[in-house]
Structure formats: structure tokens, C-alpha cells
């Protein structure tokens, strides 16, 4: 009887291939997540600091004498007459030349520009402004698409 039990036990072990003692293989977990690459955003350049030049517009138009100021209101009142600041027939060009001479010790030195060239300069300035703005928008675009949403929020 004891021999029979032992034989059955051995037979069970033999036909199961010791599978009763085998442990199930561990599951291999592979986790893949899309990762957004962190792009370091550069520091933007400092803003533009422009200084305005002074334009002088001159022609051979005669200067009109300004009205005399009312001593009470301190406002020009043409009823009181005109001031006498300029010589007879004094033009804008004369005044400009005189002011230049005064600034440069009697020398007549200045840079001149025609109205057409002034228009051209204005066009160029506007063109540069447009370019700065559009380039700025391109920077905004790249920042929008490269800065992770979490950081923006």
C-alpha cells in the first residue's frame, strides 16, 4: 500500500515534468510614451532705442511775422498787430542758413534731402518696421510650437 502511494506520487511528478514547482514567467512590461523635447528658448535682444533727428523744411516762402501776444492772456492776438522779428522778405531758407551759420561758426554746412528722398526714407523706415514686426511674429510662432503646453499654462 505504501509502495503504491509512493509510486503514484513519483508517477505524478514524472508526468507533470515538475511543472507544479515551476513559477509562471514574469511579464515583461514595455512602456513607451511620446516625449516632448525641451528646447531652451534664447533670451530676446534688448529693445530698440531710437533717437529722433530734427528735420528742417525750408523753401523760399516768406516768413510770416507772428501776431503780438496779449499781455493779459499771453496768447497771440492779431488784432494787436504783428511782431517785427525778421527783415523784409526774409524766407524760411534765409532763416535756416542763418541758424546753420550760427551753429557752425559762420560756415554753411548741412546735409540736405529732397522731398522725394524724404518719402523714400519714410518708406524704408516703414519697411524696416514691417520686417521687425513680421519677424517678431515668426518668433512668437516658434515659441508657440516649441514651448511645452504645461509651461505655457
Amino acid at each position, binding site marked *: 500500500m505504501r509502495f503504491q502511494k509512493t509510486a503514484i506520487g513519483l508517477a505524478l511528478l514524472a508526468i507533470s515534468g515538475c511543472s507544479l514547482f515551476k513559477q509562471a514567467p514574469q511579464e515583461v512590461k514595455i512602456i*513607451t510614451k511620446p516625449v516632448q523635447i525641451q528646447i531652451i528658448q534664447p533670451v530676446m535682444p534688448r*529693445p530698440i532705442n531710437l533717437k529722433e533727428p530734427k528735420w528742417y*523744411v525750408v*523753401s523760399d516762402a516768406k516768413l510770416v511775422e507772428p501776431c503780438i501776444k496779449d499781455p493779459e492772456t499771453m496768447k497771440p492776438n492779431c488784432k494787436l498787430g504783428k511782431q517785427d522779428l525778421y527783415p523784409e522778405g526774409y524766407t524760411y531758407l534765409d532763416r535756416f542758413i542763418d541758424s546753420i551759420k550760427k551753429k557752425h561758426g559762420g560756415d554753411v554746412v548741412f546735409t540736405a534731402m529732397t522731398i522725394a528722398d524724404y518719402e523714400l526714407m519714410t518708406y524704408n523706415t*516703414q519697411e524696416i518696421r*514691417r520686417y521687425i514686426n513680421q519677424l*517678431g511674429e515668426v518668433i*512668437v510662432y516658434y515659441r508657440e510650437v516649441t514651448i511645452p*503646453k504645461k509651461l505655457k499654462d
Partner: protein
Amino acid sequence: MGATGYLYYQFSVVPMQVELQELKLLTMAQEVRNQEQIETIAAIKESFETAGVALKGLQLKNQQYEVQMSEYLDIFRRHNVAKLASAKPGLMELRFNKGTKEVFNAISEDSNRISALSD
């Protein structure tokens, strides 16, 4: 009978178990891959949407800047500046200087806005 059972187990059940395990792993890998694909597609979709919105905004702003420039320069088309400057140089001098100041200030403001992006 024991030997037959042993042989059956070794040559039929064990290979089936191995195959089953392999198929389980394969299914798991497929599931992981599937999930990965779904997440990747979602990320690409989101990225496209963000880029699309940003691009639309960019185009709109660029058009506005073109219009702004044309409007500003239109003053030279509407007026004979040379004639005006000849007749009223004092008045035009004021306008030229005021206009220059305004444009330069506007450029400074524009650059301020761009520089402030990194804040």
C-alpha cells in the same frame, strides 16, 4: 499508461504551453505598441493643431502689418508733399518731426513687445 501520459505531456502539452506563453507575450507587445501608436498620433495631432493655430495667427498679423504700412505710406499718395512743403514749410516741418517721433516710438514699442517675450 504513465509513460503514455508522460509522452503526451512532453510532446503535446509542453509545446502548447510554450506557444501560449509566446502568444501572450506577443499580444502584450502588440497592446503596448497599439497604445504607443495611439499616444503618438494624439501627440502629433495636438502638435499640428497648435502649429495650425499659431500659423493662422502669424499670417493674420503679417497681413495686418502690410496693411498698416500701406496706410501709413498712403499719405504721400494722397498729398503732394513737395508742393505743401514749398508753400508751408513751417507746418510741414512740424509734421515731419512729429511723424518721425511717432514712427520711432512705434518701432521702440514693437521691439519692446518682442523683447518681452522672454519674460
